[in-house]
Each structure stands twice: as structure tokens, then as C-alpha cells.
């Protein structure tokens, strides 16, 4: 460091220095930084156990400095239940994509939320399967062309995109449910605030918390990173409104 200059920013030590294998322009990296900075603020390095199931989230096994459990597709909320029930002193997170949470893992997320499991779910919703190469997700919008909806998603044959946060907020178990986005600095700050609240819910033992984060997939959307962020603003947010859907008393 040059004399007279002081360091005003550095990467949180909660993330490893390993090379990332996410595609260029992908917002997983932003989300990792945001929630790891909140973990650092709360000094949770020695308590955290994160459960990463299947999808692009699986790549994260090497990216966190805290204990990590890799789980089967969709089953992270059940695995996290096993960790938290056996070790209530640990701070337990699941990090799940939309194919994982809203399709193959619907039973596990609904019941973990309904039991009010004292865990936090970070739900990354980009409306497509990334790891397997761009298939239609339960969250893909009507009209979106994907590998498995080459003529565009149709409600009549493919069903409607599923709003998980709204659905889960109908249950009594959750303490905190919010939807945020990482399309802009302002919304990234909003994401950080929501994650802080969700983590506080777990620290206070109030029950299940979830932050759904609208995200991009430039590779499988076939768009450049800037246009991908615009797509969130112009398309995704219209169907998936941002906001807090459930904030329990005492939070």
C-alpha cells in the first residue's frame, strides 16, 4: 500500500479466494458477497452451516469459508432441518435456485416453512435452469423461450409462473419473507437489508425466514449482462413484485 493511502474496502474474509466458475455477468457472485458481508457483520463465521443443493448453487461448495453441506436436488430445507434440530446453536442457511426450490423441492420448502424451522433460505430466482443448460423453470415467465419451451412458455400447457414468496407467506410458520433484486445498486442495498432482517429472525429464534432474490442468467437467457439486468426491471419485476410479504412481530 502506498504511503498516505488507507484501505477503505476489501472482500469479506467469509468468502474464499478460489477462482469462481460462474458465467460472466451472473449475479450469484453479488448475492454471495451481500449475504457473506451480513454474516461478517453479525460475526457468525464459527456458527454458520450452509446447505447448498443442486444447480449452479452446487459450485458454491468451494466459495465459503464456513462449514458447508452439499445436498440432493431440492432437499436442502430437510437437510437444514436435520442440522438445526440436532445442533440448535448453529446458524443454518440454505442457498437454493428456483428449479431446486420451486420445482423438485416444493414439498421440502413448504413443510420447513410451515414448521417454522429456525433456518434462513436464500432463494435465487432467475426463472431458468442454469447448470443443466437453460431449461424452463416453474418461475419462467409466460412467453419465455427456453430449451424446453422453444416456442415460448404457454400457460395452457406449461402452467403459470409460480410466486413462491406470496405462497409461503400464507403459512403461519415463517417469521420473515421478502423479495428483493440485484439489478441495481439501490436494490442490492435493499437485498442486504432484507438478508439482515432474515438473519435476525433466526438469531432471535422467531422461525423460518426467506429472501427471494431476482437474479439473471445471461448465458441461458442469451443476453449480455447489461440487457439481463434490464430484463429484470422490464419483465421479471412486473410479475414478481419486490417487497416484504411477511414480517413477524418482534422483528
Amino acid at each position, binding site marked *: 500500500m502506498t504511503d498516505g493511502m488507507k484501505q477503505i474496502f476489501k472482500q469479506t474474509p467469509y468468502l474464499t479466494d478460489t477462482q469462481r466458475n460462474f458465467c460472466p455477468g451472473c449475479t450469484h457472485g453479488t448475492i454471495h458477497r451481500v449475504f457473506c458481508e451480513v454474516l461478517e457483520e453479525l460475526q457468525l*463465521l*464459527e*456458527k*454458520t*452451516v450452509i*446447505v447448498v443443493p443442486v444447480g449452479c448453487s*452446487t459450485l458454491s*461448495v468451494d466459495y*465459503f*469459508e*464456513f*462449514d*458447508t*453441506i*452439499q*445436498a*440432493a436436488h431440492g*432437499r436442502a430445507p*430437510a*437437510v*437444514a*432441518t*436435520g*442440522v*438445526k*434440530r*440436532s*445442533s440448535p*446453536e*448453529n*446458524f443454518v442457511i440454505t442457498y437454493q435456485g428456483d428449479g431446486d426450490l420451486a420445482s423438485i423441492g416444493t*414439498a*421440502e420448502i*413448504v*413443510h420447513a416453512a410451515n414448521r417454522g424451522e429456525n433456518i434462513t433460505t436464500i432463494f435465487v430466482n432467475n426463472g431458468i435452469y442454469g447448470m443443466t443448460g437453460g431449461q424452463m423453470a416453474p418461475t419462467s415467465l409466460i412467453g419465455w423461450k427456453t430449451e424446453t419451451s422453444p416456442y415460448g412458455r404457454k400457460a395452457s400447457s406449461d402452467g403459470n409462473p409460480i410466486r413462491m414468496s406470496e405462497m409461503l407467506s400464507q403459512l403461519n410458520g415463517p417469521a420473515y419473507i421478502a423479495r428483493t433484486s440485484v439489478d441495481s445498486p439501490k436494490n442490492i442495498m435493499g437485498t442486504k437489508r432484507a438478508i439482515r432482517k432474515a438473519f435476525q429472525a433466526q438469531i432471535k429464534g422467531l422461525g423460518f425466514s426467506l429472501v427471494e432474490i431476482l437474479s439473471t442468467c445471461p448465458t441461458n437467457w442469451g443476453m449480455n449482462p447489461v440487457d439481463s439486468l434490464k430484463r429484470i426491471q422490464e419483465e421479471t419485476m412486473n410479475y414478481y413484485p419486490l417487497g416484504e410479504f411477511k414480517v413477524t412481530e418482534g422483528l
Partner: protein
Amino acid sequence: MSEKILMKGAEVLGEAAIKAACRLFFGYPITPQNEAPAYMAKRLPEVGGTFLQAESEVAAINMLYGAAGAGHRVMTTSSSPGISLMMEGISYIAGAELPVVLANVMRGGPGLGGIGPAQADYFQSTKGGGHGDYRIITLAPSDLQEQVDLMYDAFDLADEYRNPVMILTDGLLGQIMEAVEFKRVKDPATLKAKPWAATGRKGRTKNLITSFDLDLDGLERHNQKIQAKYALAKQKEVRFQDFHAEDAEIIVVAYGTMARICKTAISHMRSEGASVGLFRPISLWPFPENQILQLAQKPSTKAILVFELSAGQMVEDVKMYTHDIKPIHFHGRTGGNVPSPQEVIEKIKAVQKEVR
């Protein structure tokens, strides 16, 4: 506590696990083992443990994965269709090298099948069951006292090999009542530490619980490590019982409930001077392959007769390990039907006639 107590088989599974220092149970209702989760729901809170009824067998096995990954003794019980649903999770548990104990109170299949006793999940349990190269240490009791003793060992074996251990029992052993004694009691505080577990990285670097490796050579090394454990288990963990088999002309091979019925039939026939004995595998994986081969090689052995509550599964292992050097006969019942000792005697007599 070392007195005999009259208990139902499914409940014995639960109490034996508690005596083996298990304080966590995740499960889902299915007949004929419902008494086990019901017993644990009542009993675990009394010893400071946790019972949770999962939303499905799929969720239950993944709760085991999480609790075992966090370093705790944990178990579930289920029956055939439920065990099928758990197979994905069991493969992950074996791949991630986690210790869990399972009990399959087998019922008639395939599909929904029925609720009568069966032994038709032998292949599923001893050959892996889910995807990938892995094995489940499989122990088959033939009475409730043995179920107590094997459950106790199952937790130690799971910890030692960091692998799933299955108590393979059936609807008959799950539902009968017998007097049992819990001679050994282990305090969870005395269990060995698990430095590999995901407990939060206090005073150490990060722990990672995973079966995932995109590096082909890395994954192969992982598989070789798992296979080395299995080779060791094959050397050290073989269990069997021999009942008048040493000098018998006809060797009956059976396990679990079926072995019990065969024992009654053979005792009766021996009292009438028949040269027949029983070889009972207790560890179905690792299978007592050398012991069955040695029996087959004896000049006194004229034929082998395998009885199962299935259409013929273990008989394939008996054929493989004896290299067909002696004639092998099979009698099986399915659908939840259990042969009487008389039916067994008739089959043995038919083979006796053929031998002469």
C-alpha cells in the same frame, strides 16, 4: 437396567437405538413399523432427544443426512416402499460418508404390495439400492434379542465406517412380542468426537460434507477410498450362525424370520435322525461368502436348500459364492405369506429323496 422386558419388535428397534446413544429420529408413517416412530415420539423427549415426523420419506432421509453431517447419531425406520423413496438420500449419505442407522421392516411388494412379512428387499439392501458404487452394511436379526444386540452394533459400525447401516427385518419380527434384555447402555457424552462434522468452524478450518467432485480423478480417488472401506468391512464384519451344518448332508440357508422357521423344522428332523443343518447369514452384506463356500466344499454336503420370503434373491449370492459345486435348491413364498415348519420339512424331505 438388565432385566427382561416384554416388548413389540418395532418398539424394540427404538429402545435399542436409545440405549446405543441415539437421540434423534426422523420418520414417516408406514405399516408394519408404525409402532417404532410412535414409541420414539413418546420416548425421545424423556431422554432429551428429538423426534420429528417428516413430510415424506424423502425428507426424512435428508433430515438424517443433515443431523449425521452435523455429527450426531441418528436413525429412521420404514418399510419397503418407504425405503425405496429414501434410496436417493442413502446414496448421498454413502457418497458423503455419513454414519446413519436405518431399519427396513420389510413387507410384500412390488409396488404398494401388502403389509405381510417379506424378504424381497434383499437385492435393494445388499447391492446398494440407489445410484452409484456403494454398499450398505446390512444386518438381519432373527429374534428380538438379536435385534437389540445388532442395533447397538449398527451405530458403532456406522460411526467406524462412516456409512449407512441397515437393520433388515420384516413384518413378522416388527409385530411380534418377545422378552428382551438391554444389557448395554451407552451415554451420548462418551461418544468419540467427529472432527469431520459440520459443527461450525471453531478453532479449525472449514469442513465440507459432500459427495460432489467434477474432477474425474478426484472423484475416482474418492470412490477408491470408499471401496477400501468396503474391502475392510468384508474382512472384519462378517456375521453368521451355524446350526448343525458342520456335518449335514443337506445345508439349509435362510436368514431372519425364515431362518427361525427353518430352525424349528430342522430341530424336529434332527430328533428323527435326519442329516440336515442350517447356515444363517446375519450380515447379508458383507455376505459370509467364505463360510458358505467351505460348507459347500465338504464331502459330506450333498445339496444346499435356500429358503426365502421372496421369489429368490439371496439364492443368487449362494450360487455365486459356492460356484455351483453342489446342487442348489430354492423354496420361496411371497405376498406376505410365511411357510409353516411342516412346509419346510416337506421341501427338505423332497431334496433328501433327490440326493439319494
